[in-house]
């Protein structure tokens, strides 16, 4: 649908031609501010991904926002118990559109090894998940791969709410 924006100053000078969708998505995908929903050991790998060796800021997602109002992508990292699920859903509802969700690790994706009365069997029963990352816990490389997949997904999206009839219907 849209092609990535490339800027070559030698050829184009200070002017680039693109589609509005492409330009907006290009900005969005390269400044994904995460809401770090660190609930278990996956959060340790999430922290490692943010630290200097793996350095998630190379992909524009280093600004961990502990306020849902300022974040774009919720990284659910860890075991979601039913008790905590109430808070996760609440924070997700507080995040403004557009927003995305990464389910990091086996527990967030499917309940993992916790087949128990106390654990929600996958965060996708409560909130829509864009990218699932396997692993227990996933290595930082896997999280970065998941982030890149999400960036690729954002490239192909419509950028305006009015272009997303399903979402507007769900929100109203």
């Amino acid at each position, binding site marked *: 649908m849209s092609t990535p924006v490339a800027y070559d100053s030698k050829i184009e000078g200070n002017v680039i031609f693109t589609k509005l969708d492409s330009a907006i998505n290009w900005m969005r995908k390269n400044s994904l501010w995460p809401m770090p929903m660190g609930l278990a050991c996956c959060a340790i790998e999430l922290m490692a991904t943010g630290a200097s060796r793996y350095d998630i800021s190379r992909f524009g997602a280093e600004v961990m926002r502990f306020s849902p109002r300022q974040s774009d992508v919720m990284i659910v990292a860890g075991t979601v118990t*039913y*008790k905590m*699920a*109430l808070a996760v859903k609440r924070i997700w509802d507080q995040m403004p559109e557009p927003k995305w969700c990464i389910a990091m690790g086996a527990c967030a994706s499917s*309940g993992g*090894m*916790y*087949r*128990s*009365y*106390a*654990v929600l*069997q996958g965060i996708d*029963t409560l909130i829509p998940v864009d990218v699932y990352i396997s692993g227990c816990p996933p290595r930082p490389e896997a999280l970065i791969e998941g982030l890149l997949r999400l960036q690729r997904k954002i490239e192909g999206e419509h950028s305006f709410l009015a272009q997303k009839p399903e979402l507007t219907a769900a929100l109203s």
Partner: protein
Amino acid sequence: MPIHHEASAAMKKDAAAIAEKFTVEKQTEFRGELTLVVTRAQFHDIARFAKEQLGYTYLVDISSVDHFGEEPRYEMVYELQNFERVENLRLKYTVSEDDATAPSVVDLWPTADWHEREVFDMMGINFPGHPDLKAVGHLRRILMWDGYPFYPLRKDFPLAGRDSNTPDVAFSRAAPLAGGPFVTAPSTGDTQEREPRSREME
């Protein structure tokens, strides 16, 4: 805490003092730890006596046991500690299924507040006299949410859980066990043989 191989003379004296004033159904000693089985009716007085007269000022823990299939079904266990002598005393009493209530000791040890709420939440034993009694007559939940209809640590509650729905609060679904529960298998084999995975139950 020092390891005792035999209960000290002071502890035996405490046990005798309790036995003199109250009914002690059974007294056992194991590796220097004394356990007294008492009655529910007298328990609050015994707890007050142990705290105020015998110096067991610290309530370490409250737990409950489900002897499913027996009557009386439940058992309450209290761990008390004497700070000065650093010695533990264990008090137990049984609670029947028909009248699953126990006396609250929050007035003696404020720390009992959350312990008793947890016992109610997981085992369904109610504590009349608890300061956090709701208008509906039972304690506020502490681990599960208000309105959750089950008591998960009872032996007749399945590990996978049960479906429930509390409108506008929360829902729960039974977890797919997929051949589980996943438990480690004791073996001298490699990790693949030992690690928790789906196995046919014997």
